[in-house]
């Protein structure tokens, strides 16, 4: 369960979020909104990458402002551009990087990494140079690097913006099968099949919060 109570945030003079009040127990939640609506900032607060100026965030009872480390173990984060997220030279090393604080030996980490890669369709790519993977494969790799830690929550910030249509669909399907609670930030409305709840943001405020269909109807009207 993710709770935002009276959350506000500013960058300099610009108000990015104000008075956000949300309780999210659902398994599939989406944040939808235009550029600059504050949806990415709100998502980053779940992982403690951005801390609120006002109010409080709780993720399954953990406060990112106090337990940043615990929260980041609990919450995985997939960014838009996998090039920025992939930090090691080969796919296997990158996934193993996530496990470096786990107490496993180097060999065990490599084995575990190869297993996870195989599970999500990157079988045999452990030794492959990460930057030579295709765009879709890179985003899968970024996902594997998070899932190897088996987090309870997965936040994805526009993960399909740089993907082609086929890879986008695949990625969406894959998200549907995960056991994690998923929070998806997007303005791609095709991805929201099977979502339980859609939160629409505009100018840093929650302007709609509903099941996908009525929420998206409101969002489309907002865009006109």
């Amino acid at each position, binding site marked *: 369960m993710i709770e935002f109570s009276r959350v506000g945030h500013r960058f300099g003079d610009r108000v990015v979020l104000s008075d956000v009040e949300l309780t999210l127990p659902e398994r599939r939640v989406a944040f939808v909104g235009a550029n600059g609506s504050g949806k990415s900032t709100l998502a980053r607060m779940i992982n403690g990458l951005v801390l609120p100026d006002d109010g409080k965030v709780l993720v399954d009872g953990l406060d990112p402002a106090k337990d940043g480390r615990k929260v980041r173990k609990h919450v995985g984060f997939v960014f838009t551009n996998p090039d*920025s997220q992939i*930090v090691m030279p080969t796919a296997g090393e990158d996934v193993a990087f996530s496990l470096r604080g786990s107490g496993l030996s180097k060999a065990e980490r490599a084995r575990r990494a190869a297993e996870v890669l195989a599970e999500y369709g990157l079988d045999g790519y452990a030794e492959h140079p990460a*930057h030579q993977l295709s765009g879709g494969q890179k985003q899968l790799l970024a996902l594997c690097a998070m899932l190897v830690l088996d987090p309870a929550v997965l936040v994805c910030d526009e993960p399909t913006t740089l993907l082609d249509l086929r890879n986008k669909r695949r990625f969406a399907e894959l998200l549907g099968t995960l056991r994690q609670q998923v929070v998806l930030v997007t303005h791609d409305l095709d991805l929201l099949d099977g979502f339980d709840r859609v939160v629409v943001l505009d100018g840093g405020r929650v302007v709609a919060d509903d099941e996908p269909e009525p929420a998206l109807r409101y969002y489309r009207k907002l865009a006109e």
Partner: protein
Amino acid sequence: MISAHEPGTSVVHRAPVGAKLLALFALAAAVFVLGSPLWLGVLCGVVLLGYALARIPARRWLRTARALLILAVFVFALQWWLLGAQAALVVCLRLVTALAAANLVTLTTPVDDVVSAVERWARPLRRFGVRPESVGLLVGLTMQAVATLSGIAREVREAAKARGAERSVTAFAVPFLVRTLRHADELGEALAARGAGDR
């Protein structure tokens, strides 16, 4: 991983990293202290013997030798003109001996071995908060960043070309640097999301 290493199983290859580095430092010191062409010649001979022992294949050996020879001839000519023949010979022997020895260590030592050696040496520092594992991590992170930035550099150069500015330093360097810094911010965020800043 790309490196200057030449795989092999010789005595030189199998010698511990620490021993090789110590030998190199001792030799470099000796080369600087000694001023007699005779002794320098002996040291030079010892290094060449090392190459023979390591059985470095001719293609690697020739390439290094050719580069070294061109440098030595150039330096010799310049020193001869400035300082005279004897001094020129001493400088050239120093140059060839030190460079050939350093190159031999690099050729016979895989990067991974150096990394694990450094990690081993850093272990006593653990009580001061140094994490030895982070050496390998830094190597991997930087090599990945080199790959990413090479891609960015290529794109930026194409863009500069498209705007007819391929000869302008700023048209290349400024966008390259801005994107480099952006990438650093994103990487920092990604590392933080994966707990790299948390101790």
